């Protein structure tokens, strides 16, 4: 009897009503948007009430897709898959005067002189947006050796002059056999009887930004409490650049203020504008962690009881104020030279870099560049 009682007690929750699944899903689904900083995970929400094995096929498919996607991404990043720089020239000729149209012999089909990149899903649309500006329908192309035939190009771009808009009068003289024209970086102009257009190079940017574990919103008002700064100073001019460090110039896109272990950290999401010593290219995005920044005064005083100044802060002040840990806060939109190390402390999200050195002034930057011979 006692065993039955215990069993019934453990299953007591089954005698209570269950929440409305639609309301539950709607509410839980809205939480990550309302509180993005909380990192709320709502796993398998759509599987409410279903056995776990219902999700196995979906999980297998997801793993396969992620694996395939990662492979393609890495191959592109490592340049194993040739990312082509199209210099495709489109030449259109039309002659309505004597009703003869001269077309290049063997050039009426698009050819791919490199590996079949069309067989690599995911590259063409996301990695080669430039191809969208290439009108390829209704035109004859003259492939230049080494160019990519953009088979996945989107439909015609209205901004690009199209072959069908060429003059239709019969006064246009006969045009000779079209030849590959000299690449021109200019916007295409419909110059009868033909035009040439070279799209800008296709580049696959690497986006290796990470998401901070937590972040603070720094109020616009005056900071109410500034404790003595820690020794998180910016680059001393005499600093030596570590041999394994990456050196890049980057534009600061976003600054996240976060904390870890009681210390303020900043996550800078940067877009690389020049790479001096790294495998990154211009346009790649990475995250850099620098010590310093802001954290809420409440957290600061909790984590640093030794710095309690004896003042009783009102609750509102504790929640709305920030403690500055670092006097030299970088500004978004500015370009800085970063000397980065992939040595990642455990309290920094995996995949980020830490700023071994950071050169906020041009003097520091020159010093670094001299050291690495750039």
């Amino acid at each position: 009897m006692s065993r039955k009682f215990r069993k019934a007690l453990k299953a007591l929750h089954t005698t209570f009503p269950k929440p409305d699944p639609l309301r539950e899903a709607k509410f839980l689904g809205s939480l990550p948007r309302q509180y993005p900083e909380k990192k709320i995970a709502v796993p398998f929400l759509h599987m409410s009430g279903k056995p776990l094995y219902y999700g196995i096929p979906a999980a297998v498919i997801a793993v396969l897709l992620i694996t395939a996607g990662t492979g393609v991404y890495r191959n592109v990043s490592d340049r194993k898959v040739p990312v082509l720089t199209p210099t495709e020239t489109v030449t259109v000729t039309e002659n309505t005067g004597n009703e003869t149209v001269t077309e290049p012999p063997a050039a009426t089909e698009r050819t791919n002189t490199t590996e079949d990149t069309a067989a690599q899903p995911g590259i063409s649309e996301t990695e080669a947006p430039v191809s969208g500006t290439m009108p390829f329908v209704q035109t004859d192309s003259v492939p230049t050796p080494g160019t990519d035939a953009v088979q996945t190009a989107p439909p015609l771009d209205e901004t690009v002059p199209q072959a069908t808009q060429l003059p239709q009068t019969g006064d246009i003289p006969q045009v000779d056999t079209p030849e590959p024209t000299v690449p021109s970086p200019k916007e295409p102009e419909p110059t009868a009887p033909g035009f040439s257009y070279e799209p800008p190079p296709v580049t696959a940017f690497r986006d290796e930004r990470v998401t901070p574990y937590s972040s603070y919103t720094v109020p616009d008002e005056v900071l109410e409490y500034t404790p003595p700064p820690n020794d998180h100073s910016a680059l001393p001019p005499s600093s030596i650049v570590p041999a394994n460090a990456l050196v890049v110039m980057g534009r600061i896109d976003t600054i996240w203020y976060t904390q870890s272990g009681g210390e303020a950290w900043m996550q800078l999401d940067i877009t690389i504008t020049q790479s001096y010593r790294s495998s990154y290219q211009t346009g790649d995005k990475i995250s850099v962690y620098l010590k310093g920044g802001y954290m809420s005064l409440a957290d600061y005083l909790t984590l640093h009881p030794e710095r309690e100044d004896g003042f009783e802060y009102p609750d509102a002040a504790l929640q709305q104020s920030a403690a500055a840990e670092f006097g030299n806060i970088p500004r978004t939109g500015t370009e800085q030279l970063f000397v980065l190390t992939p040595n990642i402390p455990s309290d920094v999200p995996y995949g980020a870099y830490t700023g071994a050195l950071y050169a906020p002034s041009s003097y520091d930057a020159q010093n670094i560049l001299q050291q690495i011979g750039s």
Partner: protein
Amino acid sequence: MDIQEQYRKVFEYCSSRIASPETAEDLTQETFLRFLEHPEYQENGKEMQYLYTIARNLCIDEYRKAPDEAKGEPLQADRQAEGWLDRLAVREILDGLPEEEREIIVLRYVAELSVREISHIFGVSWFAMNRRIQHILAQMRRDFEKEGSV
């Protein structure tokens, strides 16, 4: 904290105190919104305590506003499941308990809070809460055996 799991548990807790499922769900959602809006509620190891304290206070407020609506949630039981009669019997015994004892058992066995977390919610020591739970369970077990022997 598994927020989906806790959503259901908080709902079950609210519906143990509020008759209307819609109101119980409103209170559940309000509980989570208040919990998430206040980072101080999310101190390490005290999330459950804060979560159910918020839910409890909201239920008390609701009871004050509309006392007629409180209590008497519909009894649910899957009659295909094994031992459903036993569960219904335990549930009826639970419903017959005084309000506070009932709440303690719901927190312990439906919301699955630890004795320490419940003791914090009620503002008593762990030992006092543990003794109280044992006492309530002994009483429930006796009633269960009595019903079974009838």
